[in-house]
């Protein structure tokens, strides 16, 4: 549906990125899929490691385990700090090499600003 506010803006529909689309970056699109898969597996691996550490913490502190604690609880601050550190190391160790060609594998993690 067009509306009057779009007067003079018809051209925007042809701009790259106007729709989300499915960009492919490699000649062989399998490479695109493989990179997505490998990242997704990393995230799921981390989910399991996080869950296991949380589980161990609960069990070592009070022999009683409730599923709700695991699903919606949070680990202690101390464990959270350790997990944050471990997660960063895991990302760096597994994926840093993607950029070794120009030395990006040794870059230190940083935020946007």
């Amino acid at each position, binding site marked *: 549906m067009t509306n009057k506010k779009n007067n003079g803006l018809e051209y925007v529909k042809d701009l790259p990125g106007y729709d989300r689309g499915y960009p492919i970056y490699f000649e062989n699109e399998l490479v695109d899929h493989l990179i997505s898969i490998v990242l*997704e597996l990393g995230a799921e691996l981390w989910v399991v490691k996080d869950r296991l550490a949380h589980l161990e913490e609960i069990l070592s502190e009070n022999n009683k385990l409730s599923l709700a604690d695991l699903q919606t609880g949070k680990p202690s601050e101390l464990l959270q700090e350790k997990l944050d550190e471990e997660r960063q190391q895991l990302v760096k160790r597994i*994926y840093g090499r993607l950029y070794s060609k120009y030395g990006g594998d040794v870059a230190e993690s940083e*935020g946007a600003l």
Partner: protein
Amino acid sequence: MTINQTIYERGKTAGIFPSLSSRRDEAYVGFIEDARNLLMHAQQKPIGEYSRSLLQDAGKSMETDPKSSAEAQELLMKDSVLKTYYRVKRSLQESFWECILNSFNMKKNELLQALDDAEKIGPGSVSYDPDYAVADYTKREIHLQPGGYVNEPLAGFIYDYGLKVFMGGSADNDAAHKGLASTAGAPKDGQVSRILDLGCSAGGTITALKNIYPDAEAWGIDVSAAMVRYAHLRAAEQNVDIHFKQMHAEELDFEDNSFDIVTATLLFHELPVSMAKKVIAEALRVLRPGGSFTIFDFPSANKQDVYGMFFGEMDALDNVEPYIPEYVRSNVEEVMDDTGFEMFPYDPSKGLLIGRIGTKPEN
């Protein structure tokens, strides 16, 4: 009336917004945030140097004219490391939004109820119209956010959480917004009784400004009803008195000469350039003589070499930022100047976000 606190039953993230619905989702998104920090943000400088060296070794022009740009893009996107960088960026971006969307959808009713409840409480207020005719160009899934700002009722929650991931933690507790707001321009005479933020989204900038000018009447406008509803909930929860209203920034429903300070944070790169011009003209109109307008956004045109341009342009296709290519080629300072603002000199190389400050002339 109070806001249903069950939305915070897992606590608050980044000090402000509801945590995701499960530990699993939190761990997943935490992984993506780290991956973005290492594989995107931390690479920006070295990959920039690498790309520039590829261009120079191939004897390419570093100028920003369309021909040089097209040549640069062609050359750079043949390189397997750069392909990997952009593939990784796209994949991470898709994954984290999907996780955040699904996670908040698990408690959709509670979150919508909280937005309804918030309408009945202060401080501050919110007004919007479910039948408001929103301009089509704003209905894009900008930065791949599912449903964009205007087509998803939970957009506010989703955007705020996404911003945390995007900024790699540097926006936690509104730190980034507080930093920006503290550098916004102000009238020389120090008189500040009314302030306005354009494209306010979740309201981080206007909240920080209101805390700097506690006696001023504060307004945040955004084209999206979902965003102003959320912004009001967020401000009311923090006990900050702000009026939020659904409005197009290019068609402000405010009187001439009625504000002392106007700001816009990260709005301009999401506007077609012809709209950006109208917004600048509207800011000039609603400011009183001596009033100050600050645009915080990425660098534009004349400040970049061809790689800087390429980097911005890739965001269009990869990240649904259709207006960035136009934006990076436009010259925001010049438009402000031409529209009638007196421009304050600034250092364009300072940081990822630049504040352009203009004053409305006294006569």
